[in-house]
């Protein structure tokens, strides 16, 4: 029985992908108070429960926003209050004073996110599509080639050597892009997606019409697979936007530091000072680089905001992509 259900849902894919409009679970609406619907009281309870959950998920961000608008004195005296006694724009004024560095970091982050996403989407979809096709004789080998890397990694230092010494990418934007461009896990997701959503019969008819595999890929597969591609794109966008580690390893040039790495740096410098008080006390310049609490929170806000306002728009692709990919992270 479950087996049957599985095949059913995979056959019904193009339909159900359309059926999900705006990320909404689309249940055919009938009259109220029939057994298909909840009792209003139950509905109310569930609404509240889920409401609490939803609130818990977004509350920290709202709280951070409030803190970023709290005056520093008020923080020192009263802590992070939910409704501060003293509001202040100082944190944002501080950020404005370092706008050059911030804007540059923003620029770097946006650039690597866009370029990186494009590159990785192409590499991943090509690879995944090829290993999903039964005509490809070596598909099992290449599947394993990708899969094996999910488990055995080379370790930090050897990877560092490949990037800096073989490819000579240190202090270039590519050092932030290439090491994150592929991910065996996404390949596997996309492969599952292609296996389930692309039926051989469509391709056969195209082949009979004399279309090349490349044309088939771009004209038929690509549009058909948009939800899956969007999902992988979103994954890698997130990966790039949130990455700080590549910058820690490969970037010395302050002009190439992405936003998250900048945030990490502030914390790391604080930690250094705490452990090396003697140096810190003699080196007063060190203290100058440390923003106050509210300013840190303001940086968190501006690093999160672009994601927070944009993901709801991608959500529907994301959800339909997941439906078919059917794999959890």
């Amino acid at each position: 029985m479950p087996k049957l259900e599985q095949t059913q849902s995979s056959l019904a894919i193009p339909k159900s992908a359309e059926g999900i409009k705006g990320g909404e679970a689309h249940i055919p609406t009938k009259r109220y108070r029939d057994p298909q619907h909840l009792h209003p009281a139950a509905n109310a309870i569930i609404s509240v429960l889920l409401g609490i959950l939803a609130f818990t998920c977004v509350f920290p961000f709202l709280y951070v926003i409030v803190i970023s608008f709290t005056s520093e004195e008020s923080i020192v005296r009263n802590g992070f209050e939910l409704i501060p006694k003293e509001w202040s724009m100082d944190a944002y004024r501080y950020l404005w004073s370092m706008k050059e560095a911030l804007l540059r970091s923003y620029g770097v982050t946006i650039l690597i996110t866009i370029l990186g996403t494009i590159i990785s989407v192409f590499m991943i979809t090509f690879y995944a599509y090829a290993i999903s096709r039964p005509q490809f004789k070596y598909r099992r080998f290449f599947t394993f080639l990708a899969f094996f890397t999910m488990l055995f990694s080379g370790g930090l230092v050897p990877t560092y050597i490949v990037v800096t010494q073989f490819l000579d990418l240190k202090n270039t934007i590519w050092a932030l892009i290439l090491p994150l461009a592929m991910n065996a896990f996404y390949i596997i997701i996309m492969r599952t997606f292609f296996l389930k959503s692309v039926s051989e019969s469509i391709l056969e008819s195209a082949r009979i019409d004399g279309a090349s595999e490349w044309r088939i890929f771009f004209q038929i597969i690509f549009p058909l697979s948009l939800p899956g591609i969007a999902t992988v794109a979103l994954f890698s966008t997130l990966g790039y936007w949130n990455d700080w580690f590549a910058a820690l390893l490969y970037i010395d040039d302050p002009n190439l530091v992405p936003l998250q790495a900048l945030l990490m740096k502030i914390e790391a410098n604080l930690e250094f000072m705490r452990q090396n008080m003697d140096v810190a006390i003699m080196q007063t310049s060190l203290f100058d680089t440390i923003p106050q609490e509210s300013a840190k929170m303001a940086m968190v806000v501006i690093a999160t905001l672009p994601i927070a306002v944009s993901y709801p728009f991608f959500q529907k692709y994301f959800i339909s992509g997941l439906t078919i990919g059917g794999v959890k992270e």
Partner: protein
Amino acid sequence: MKKKKLGVILASVLAAGTLLSACSSKDSGTSEQSGKSGEAYEIKWYTIGTPQKDTEKVFTEVNKYTKEKINATVKMTQIDWGDWVQKSQVMINSGESFDIIFTNGTSYVQNAQKGAFMEIDDLLEKEGKELKEVINPDLLEGNKVDGKLYGIPANKEVVRQDVYTFNKRLVDKYKFDLTKVKTLQDLEPMLKTIKENESGVTPIATFKAPVRFDYVFNNEMPFAFPFEGETDKVINPFESDTAMEQFKTMHEYYKAGYLKEDAATSKDSWPMDVENWFVRMGGSQPYADLLWSRSAKYEVVSVPAEEPTIINDSVSGSIQAISATSKNPEKAMEFLALLNTDPYLRNLVDKGIEGTHYKKNDDGTIEDLPARIDGYNMPSYSLGNHFILDLYKEDPKDKWEKFQEFNASAVKAPSLGFKFNSDPVRSELASITNISKEFYPALATGSVDPEEYLPKFNKKLEEAGVDKVLKEIQKQFDEWKSSQK
């Protein structure tokens, strides 16, 4: 069958990869040769600190000078404070090719033992004669690892002296008599007054209760030589009465609310310019109060907490080492020699360009211009010899003389120059490190009751093999000691 074929493909692709790498390594080979013949060699130098905007500008000047003097140019790259440990570790382990790198403390010893740095005794003899004469011999002796030197220490204070530093305004207000302060316990009446009368002030700007021993690693780790009595015998200082007594006092202070509640873990760095503290503790140097008062913008005053002492830590606070991967160590050494002996170069690297970053007064003293703070704010301690730095207008004229006196006044710690090789006991050390990280901060800030936690700490240390490590240290120490004679 199928697999075999693919094996062939894979092998050929891998071969292509190796070829690629061979090519790239050839490239670096050619640059090496050009360095030796006529053309100026570019010295790659990594040092600590926040990267500065005007570095390039200043180093254009530096290069003009070094090209003329030693036929080399310098590419200096700064790595930010907080990234330093991790990044330098990866760079060194990866065998990246560079010439000079900043290092200090245990990481200097570890990396020297691992072969990351070049032995420079001969180089120093050949290319750095004048440098050798300038540097304090204690610094050179104290930094030998297995009898060999692996880096050029910055010539500055070689002494460690912890002081209690007080907020002078409050001292004056309540007419405290600081001459009576000798120990941690002596602080109590003052702390009480402050706590009761000054609501916005935390009496103690978090510091760790001092337990005075000559530590083999650092004061977190339970291995140390006593300064008095049997100074040749390594012990676990946390089993001493001093430790119990100090931690107990600290715990009382903590309970009385003289410290912040999260003292053990807080990341608060207590910047000087925020006047929210009464007493703090830190390493001192001559005229430190002046320096601190200047950065705090109000007056502070210090009282010594211990005698000035030369310990392994105080001689290895700042070292520039030559990498084992350097293509031209002679040039690197020539540069280090020049940097540490030539006042023009030293000041240029440290303060920037005269007229742009600082201005020189008629009496030879200097003043920072806004461009220095903004674009070239360098950490002096990491860069080299202090005694050839220009004095600031506000500096006392005898600042460097006082430094020399300070250095001369100190006593030498029992284990000065002894570098422990931890390989034979590394598994014990790994777990001991974790245990210390768990207990020490809480105990030393008084956050927990030592009556309960200190025995717990020691018991855990014992289980982790502290005795075995102590034995090994003693063995190596005895060997070292006899080789000294």
